[in-house]
């Protein structure tokens, strides 16, 4: 899948349609092809002994899918609003949901409008970003959702738990 770090392949594949959503006032973008549906926030069953950003699991028409809270994932204050909703994404055949503050729109971003994420120095991780889009006069942070939800990170956290 698109876990290439090679910037040329990234540049080629970055243009396209993005679903944008808000997270603590910032606007993020998600490749539309990865999105399978948007559902309202519903009761989430907490799963014990999971990292905090894993909100738990929900029943998506008979399927149990995990829900990740992007606010917590990115270290923002956790809070749900009335507009909060769950975007169900499909990655590598696995369905999983992410909780976001508000879904905004679907925009087409041309390659020319995408810049590589600048480096902010230590403390701010940018490997989750495909790039920064500038469509519509606003800055949209384009997420590499596969990296955001990479299971390896969860596994690493689990290993940390067990070691502790």
């Amino acid at each position: 899948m698109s876990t290439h770090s090679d910037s040329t392949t990234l540049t080629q594949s970055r243009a396209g349609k993005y679903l944008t959503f808000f997270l603590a006032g910032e606007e993020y973008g998600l490749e539309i092809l990865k999105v399978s549906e948007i559902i309202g926030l519903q009761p989430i069953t907490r799963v014990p002994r999971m990292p905090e950003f894993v909100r738990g699991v929900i029943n998506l028409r008979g399927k149990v899918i995990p829900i990740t809270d992007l606010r917590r994932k990115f270290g923002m204050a956790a809070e749900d609003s009335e507009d909060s909703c769950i975007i169900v994404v499909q990655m590598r055949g696995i369905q999983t949901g992410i909780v976001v503050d508000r879904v905004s729109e679907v925009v087409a971003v041309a390659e020319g409008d995408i810049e590589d994420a600048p480096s902010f120095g230590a403390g701010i991780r940018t490997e989750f970003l495909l790039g920064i889009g500038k469509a519509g006069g606003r800055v949209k942070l384009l997420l590499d959702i596969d990296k955001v939800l990479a299971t390896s990170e969860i596994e690493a956290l689990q290993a940390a738990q067990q070691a502790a």
Partner: protein
Amino acid sequence: MSPLNLDDAATLLMQLEATDTADLAVLRDALTDLAFENRVPLRAQPHVAKAARVLGTIVNGTAADVQAAFTEVGQSIEEAMKICDAATPPAAVGAVPVAQALAGTVNGATAIAVASGALKKQTQTAEAETAEATVAEAAVAEAVLPPPAVEASVVVAAAPVASVAPAPAVSRHQPPAHSQTERLPDDADRDLLPDFITESVECIAASEAALLSLEENPSDEEAVNTVFRAFHTVKGTSAFLGLTRIAEFAHEAESLLSRVRDKEIAYTQGCADLSLRSVDMLKDLLDVVEKALSGDGRLPLPAGYHELHQALASYDPARDANGVTLAIVPAAEDIFPAPSDAASGDHGSAVSARAESGQAASRKSGESNADATIRVRTDRLDRLIDMVGELVIAQSMIAGDETIDTSTQYELQRKVTHAGKIVRELQDLSMSMRMVPLRPTFQKLARVVRDTATKAGKTVQFTTEGDDVEIDRNMVDRLGDPLVHMVRNAVDHGVEPPHERTANGKNGLGQVRLHAYHASGNVVVELIDDGRGLHRDKIVKKAIEKGLIESDKGMSDSDVFNLIFAPGFSTAEKITDISGRGVGMDVVRRNLEEIRGRIDITSAPGKGTTFSIRLPLTLAVTDGMLVRVGSERFIIPLTHIHMSFRPEPSMLSTVVGKGEMVLLRGELMPVVRLHRLFDVPDAVESPLEGLLMIVGDGNKRTALLVDDLLGQQQVVAKAIGDGLGKVPGVSGGAILGDGRVGLILDVNETVALAQNTDSSSSLTRSVAA
């Protein structure tokens, strides 16, 4: 079997006319059966078959000259009778003159009336059988009949006619073997055959792909092995099922490949040709079996069988390297072997024969209960079951909706209830789709018993009961291996050798019995042997030797017997190649635990042993107890729960101020606070206000502290999100009645988790944050 013989046929023929097509058809069927049932000598069969064929033309109205056809039939039967006379022992020869005499003397109105009357009463088979017995008696009687026997003779003449009718019926159920045209063997297992066909077709498809890749890369050993294995599998299974033709053919094909594999010959063009043609031939052969299964059980050989068989057997790498020329393939061998003297002009009859078999097939399919099946991918099936489950929940949500006013909206409520009924039926149906009977599993075990008994020099009678009990398809596969182990053990260790049995006053024939039945929502499979039983003392001695226990004090018989499931435990004095290495029983238990089965042993020395395996009906549904911990709910599988109770203060104690213990009826168990382990807020803190639930098995029991029991529930276990990886302590999720997800606890893991975690503090959150 069919009581009609040639003489009867001759008699009958004389009494019939061209217009009695229905009776003629019956006679033709009877003759056809006769030809295929080895009741006439081999050399007579072509004549009988010819008679049947010509008779067929009369019945169909295709005979050019009816009278000539009649004569021909008569001649054929006569020829066949002559051959019979030459072949049959003297006692039976007497029958011919008797019958002929009868045909001559009783060729009067009475006989015909009785005969045709009997024909119309085809259903009265019982009468016919009585009459049949008379035939047998009459056959050995002297040719000169004394006056009192005349009456009986009328019966004799009638008997064959009456018994014509049951003949085809009998033959349908037990297709007899025939030397010329194969039929399904009598003992062919019609339940196993469809599986065999599907499996073989898959094997062959795989081998075909491998053959093609082999052609591109002749040194691909893996491909050669794939093909070899495919042929080998087909050979083995078909031989087991009595399909000798397929076995023979697969054997030749396998031999060719084995020569390639052993580098004896190169994989040349010719070799490739032959292999591919063999694959095609196997496909044809399987096709034939499949048709026979749904049709009349005949197994005509596909065109070119002999030629290809020959070419395979005589493959010469030097001569055939660039291709193999097969002998010109003649037209398909028909189900009626054409005798050399009647080889010409048989075209029409062959057609009629086909029409006939077509009729037979359609007649068969009308009453056949052979299950028509369709293969569906399990993930689709699972999805369907999921969706139906959702439908049930959605429906119950509608039914429980508060906006439906039960007092006024009677009509609406009625409709909702109606829909609910349909949904529930749909749910039952979707669940049943995963279920398969245990029969094939049990049948394989019969073979295991036979082989093991032969090796161990024992005589064992194997009986099965309840093999129509159905369980989940996924479980059947995983039940097979443990059962094989156990059955072997029962035969090898359980049942004594014949001399020992007789010395102990038992029947020399050992009994091993498999019994499956439903009991309180579970399927129980019992394996019962009447062998020497388990000796408590021996097991205890061994267990102490192995350091498994220190003494058997306080252990019940069943506890002691359960020791045989410990790894490395074996009481067999010597290791045979069948069993005794001590790897068996612990594997058995582990495999059974995987499918959530529980195994119990009861045994009495000298009387025998009973292993009873208790299995859930399906893996998809878990019987669980829904418990509340704080505001969260968990499902604990019922199989793990022994009891729950509210403790008295005197029952609780702590170790070093931390580790909590509960003393119940003399048993000390650690208390695991679920709310601490899983970091649940607002849960009941004091065990005195909550409930303790005893879980675990054997000596390692644990008390789980929960707030409350919400009730018992059947839930459909699902993997919780693939994205999460393995969740410690949780085996899966289930959709609860309100549509939310409940987590199913993995009890063993939870207990282990509690032991590894400092229960007084919860690290989880702090690490994650």
